[in-house]
């Protein structure tokens, strides 16, 4: 028995908890059996250890929008950090004690008055996992992947986002080894706020581009 028996749980809350019946209530299906068979064989052959798998699960669970929010808050509060983030995002977040690999390469895309960034991976599900953790199901879905480049304004409307007149949208399709973190615009009325206070305004969706930072 591994230490992770029982359902994994997400620490960061969700808007809706619609557990698909197939995954939570049915007995293990064919793919769960396949996963177990593959995992057991890989461990027996010394390709992986159970501890490595556990540790990897823990690492991925520790990567979450909260981490991205800290980066955004610091970029808002600290102009020198914001410049460092622009120049070399990996080195900049490294200075915060967040270790991310060289590749894929993290790139910060800053929103500004008149400019709104939206990120998608039309070909699969590339996402800045090293910072934000696992992407939401909708990001990996055919509707989002197909329509984000076809009708970005329509997609934003579905997410309840209306942009000021004259705002240009830049949609980045993550087709290669770059991973994009959107830095939303800092809300007005937050002058003098601490990084912790600012971080609480940064939603996951605002770092993908399907949302804006929360107002104070």
């Amino acid at each position, binding site marked *: 028995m591994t230490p992770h028996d029982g359902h*994994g749980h997400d620490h960061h809350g969700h808007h809706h908890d619609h557990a698909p019946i197939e995954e939570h209530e049915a007995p293990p299906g064919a793919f769960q059996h*396949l996963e177990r068979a593959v995992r057991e064989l890989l461990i027996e052959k010394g390709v992986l250890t159970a501890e490595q798998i556990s540790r990897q699960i823990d690492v*991925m669970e520790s990567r979450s929008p909260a981490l991205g929010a800290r980066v955004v808050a610091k970029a808002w509060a600290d102009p020198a950090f914001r410049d460092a983030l622009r120049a070399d995002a990996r080195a900049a977040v490294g200075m915060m004690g967040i270790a991310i690999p060289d590749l894929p390469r993290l790139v910060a895309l800053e929103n500004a008055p008149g400019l709104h960034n939206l990120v998608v991976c039309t070909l699969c599900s590339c996402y800045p996992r090293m910072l934000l953790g696992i992407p939401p*199901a909708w990001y990996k879905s055919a509707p989002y992947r*197909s329509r984000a480049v076809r009708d970005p304004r329509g997609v934003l409307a579905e997410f309840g986002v209306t942009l000021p007149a004259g705002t240009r949208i830049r949609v980045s399709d993550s087709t290669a080894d770059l991973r994009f973190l959107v830095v939303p615009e800092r809300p007005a009325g937050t002058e003098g706020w601490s990084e912790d206070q600012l971080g609480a305004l940064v939603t996951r969706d605002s770092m993908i581009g399907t949302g804006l930072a929360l107002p104070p």
Partner: protein
Amino acid sequence: MTDGRAMHDLGGLDLGPIDRAEHPRTLYEQRVDALVMLLTSPSVGAFKVDALRRAIEEFSRADYEHLPYYDRWMQAIARLLVEQRVLDQAELDARLAAVAGGAHG
């Protein structure tokens, strides 16, 4: 693929409204994700993530469209491990039968 568009290549199509429902990751999903990350990591290097993507792109359209996301990755992992001779198909089949037939852990 009548017009040259591969079935995973979805940009520009209109594939309907976006379902924003979310659920906590199951243990199965966490384990599949961990296998992807570990097997493609430089220290293990069983294969590159590019090979996993390619394996998924080789699925039938029916499988691609109907298999849940993590099941696609699990299928691709198994295929590539056999392709790269890390596992052989016979031992995988045998273990699968044992796991499916025996007690669930």
